């Protein structure tokens, strides 16, 4: 019964989304307040229907209802409860439903929290969100319905890929999807502005909180995904430049550019057309990222089963959303009044530079990702580009970005000079020079060396920005602290997010110095790696809930003192006849000791074990930096100016005049 209810709720949500796409738009055009007022109600109604539908699917998964095809294919009685719930979005159908649910939440949030928006703008924004939602709900209902029944119902499900049975992966998709889908709101604002023919400072101020919120989720999602591949896949790697990873990085890059260019719109009423284009581009990349990858066009580990009907539907939908919005942009953008120009040496000048560099990085990542499929489509050649390509292209563009990031926030608006700003950064400069000397002693390659140096520059620059604002050491400490309390949270958040980038880059640069060793040893044998002695002391078998595992014990000693005991293991899942590797990691936040148990060789009387041992300096900093970036975003979201006061348009008469 409950799957039918879920199916009905899904269909209802689709109908509501259709109404939400059309009625408020007509209302806004005819200035009919009743039709416009329907927008928030319809958005909330759609959200409730989707919540019901999702709850029904979760209920079917928890209750082991194997007559639902999706549950039968992806779940099993013996699976732990947590993974029964998270398994709901671990497959194609469920993940499309989750995607639609998050889009519904975004629409509902605009409906509930957007009360201070002008009613016409709010109606249009919600209508655009409804249109996108209707398209994807239709896709969900017609080609990938999660509530399809199977007859006869099997006694037990086929189970879930053991690799996916992991708490890190359980929460990675919802966070990442929230990031992807969150950019639908800036997109809807951009489309609404194009329909209205008007972008001004207030628009920049309304868009920015949504963009920052989506950006925070996307940052966390990417960091979580990278951490997952680090500790689950057991390769000691953290980023593989796999198409799926790139698909999340590309919207992150343009989204970061969007967050910055919206500041220029808000403060200086410049870069308006560009910001609209960025908002459209970011959501288009999010969309094509999630769905091109899943349609199997890009060769990827994440591709779900290939189904031509789905592929055609998705391509049509993408063409409609992306092509339609770009067409609207081409027609309406000339009607937007061009923004003011500004001096190259100024805060806004550096923000433009930030946008150019971020978009250049985005362009090379996009080229590297799309070139292989195009070559195979057009010329039948099978090629691939990997880490060396991206290292050689993205890193040289990222380093100037870091260099400008160190002092960008200290530049005054409108007109500035480099020298006074750099003079105030003298101690950051000394710190950076010291970091360069220290890094040059350990790091031999030029790119990681420069990255590490400029990462320190960014962190020191962010600290200097705050120290300068509160006049640290130039006033009595009490007064400085008082100033710190009065400091706008947005400024603190920006400095924190920039420092987070520095922390991440330091981690990435230090990881170029990681050491690893693959050895075949007997129990009791000792290996030396990075100054530590690793001894395999024991290997034994132990049963688990739905697997059996082989657990090794490795003692790591430094100068005879016990540092840690690692327990890497191998799990064999009988139901899928599959083995997974459980990595053991010991971290002290400055470095990770990472041990992997490999195959067992030799005779039963005299077994030998293959071990892979890694020493990863500063590895946790890569993800810690991501977390700090997201915290910076949240801090700046809590700024009063982001929420109240601002959303009052200066000249309401302009609304009509623009048309």
């Amino acid at each position, binding site marked *: 019964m409950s799957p039918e209810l879920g199916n009905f709720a899904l269909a209802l949500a689709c109908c509501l989304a259709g109404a939400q796409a059309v009625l408020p738009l007509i209302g806004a055009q005819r200035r009919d307040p009743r039709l416009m007022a329907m927008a928030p109600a319809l958005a909330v109604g759609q959200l409730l229907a989707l919540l019901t539908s999702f709850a029904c699917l979760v209920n079917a998964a928890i209750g082991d209802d194997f007559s639902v095809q999706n549950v039968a294919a992806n779940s099993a009685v013996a699976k732990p409860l947590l993974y029964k719930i998270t398994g709901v979005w671990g497959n194609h159908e469920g993940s499309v439903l989750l995607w639609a649910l998050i889009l519904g939440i975004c629409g509902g949030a605009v409906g509930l929290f957007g009360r201070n928006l002008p009613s016409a703008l709010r109606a249009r924004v919600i209508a655009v969100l409804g249109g996108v939602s209707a398209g994807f709900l239709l896709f969900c209902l017609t080609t990938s319905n999660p509530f399809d029944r199977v007859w006869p119902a099997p006694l037990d499900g086929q189970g879930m*890929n053991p690799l996916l049975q992991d708490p890190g992966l359980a929460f990675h998709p919802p966070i990442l999807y929230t990031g992807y889908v969150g950019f639908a709101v800036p997109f809807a604002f951009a489309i609404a502005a194009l329909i209205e023919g008007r972008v001004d400072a207030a628009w920049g101020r309304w868009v920015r909180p949504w963009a920052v919120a989506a950006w925070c989720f996307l940052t966390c999602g990417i960091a979580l995904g990278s951490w997952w591949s680090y500790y689950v896949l057991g390769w000691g790697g953290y980023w593989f430049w796999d198409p799926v990873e790139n698909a999340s990085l590309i919207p992150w890059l343009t989204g970061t550019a969007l967050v910055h260019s919206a500041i220029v719109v808000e403060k200086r009423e410049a870069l308006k057309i560009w910001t609209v284009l960025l908002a459209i581009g970011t959501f288009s990349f999010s969309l094509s990222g999630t769905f091109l990858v899943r349609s199997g066009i890009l*060769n990827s*580990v994440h591709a779900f089963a290939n189904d031509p009907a789905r592929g055609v539907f998705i391509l049509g939908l993408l063409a409609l959303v992306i092509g339609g919005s770009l067409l609207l942009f081409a027609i309406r953008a000339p009607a937007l009044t061009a923004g003011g*120009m*500004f*001096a*190259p040496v100024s805060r806004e000048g550096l923000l*433009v*530079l930030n946008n*150019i*560099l971020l*978009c*250049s*990085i985005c*362009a*090379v990542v996009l*080229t*590297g990702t799309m*070139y292989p499929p195009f070559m195979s489509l057009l010329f039948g*050649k*099978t*090629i*691939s*580009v*990997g880490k*060396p*390509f991206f290292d*050689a*292209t993205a890193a*040289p*563009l990222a380093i100037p970005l870091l260099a400008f990031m160190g002092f960008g926030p200290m530049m005054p608006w409108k007109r500035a000079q480099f020298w006074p700003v750099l003079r105030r950064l003298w101690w950051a400069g000394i710190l950076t020079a010291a970091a360069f000397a220290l890094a040059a002693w350990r790091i031999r390659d030029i790119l990681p060396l420069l990255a590490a140096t400029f990462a320190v520059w960014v962190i020191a620059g962010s600290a200097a920005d705050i120290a300068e604002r509160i006049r640290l050491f130039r006033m009595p400490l009490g007064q400085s602290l008082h100033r710190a309390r009065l400091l706008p949270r947005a400024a603190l958040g920006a400095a924190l997010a920039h420092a987070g980038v520095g922390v991440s880059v330091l981690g990435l640069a230090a990881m170029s110095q990681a050491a690893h060793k*693959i*050895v*075949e*040893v007997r129990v009791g044998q000792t*290996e030396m790696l990075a100054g530590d002695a690793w001894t395999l002391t024991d290997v034994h078998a132990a049963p688990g809930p739905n697997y059996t595992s082989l657990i090794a014990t490795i003692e790591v000693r430094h100068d005879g003192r016990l540092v840690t005991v690692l327990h890497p293991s*191998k799990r064999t899942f009988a139901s*899928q*006849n*599959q*083995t*997974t*590797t459980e990595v053991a990691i010991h971290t002290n936040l400055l470095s990770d000791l990472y041990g*992997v148990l*490999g*195959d067992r*060789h030799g005779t039963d009387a005299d077994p030998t074990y*293959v071990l*892979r041992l890694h020493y990863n300096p500063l590895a946790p900093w890569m993800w810690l930096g991501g977390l700090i970036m997201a915290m910076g975003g949240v801090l700046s979201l809590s700024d009063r100016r982001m929420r109240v006061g601002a959303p009052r348009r200066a000249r309401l008469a302009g609304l009509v005049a623009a048309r």
Partner: protein
Amino acid sequence: MTRKSRRLWLACACLLGLGSATALTLNAFSSNIVFFMAPSQIHAKPPAPDRTVRLGGMVVAGSVRRQTVGETPVALFDVTDGQAAVTVRYEGILPDLFREGQSVVAIGTASPDGTFRASEVLAKHDETYMPKEVAEALRRSGKWDPRYGKAPDAASWDTMTVRDARKDAAGPQQQHGS
């Protein structure tokens, strides 16, 4: 500064950014693109020893040999596309999903002595999964067409292959009947 010169500055900055991105991309494409090759292609036209390629095919059943050099474990196995076989040498832990008689992709360089030195071995997904590029190579070699059902059983496939590989080395290749 006039409005015109500011515009000029903006255009120059954009050109510089995109120009350097293009230059970096083209430069990286010339040296960092990895081509996919089937074993028969490696036999026919061995790539330069410093060129990284992806080698894909089926692991010949019974061909996996393990040695230890010093304390480093080394795995040797043959990869075939049904027309030729190449011996792959890999130092490290083979992935969990690596099986004899199943598809594999090895990334590395072809050394002059005829073996392939892999720096990475990929065996993805479950046992029924086959990388697209391997399936394509098998189809081209005429050994298996994905349209006609599952890949042939590992056992039949290997006897066929090893003999073919030898024949291939000895003289011109014979076509099998369709």
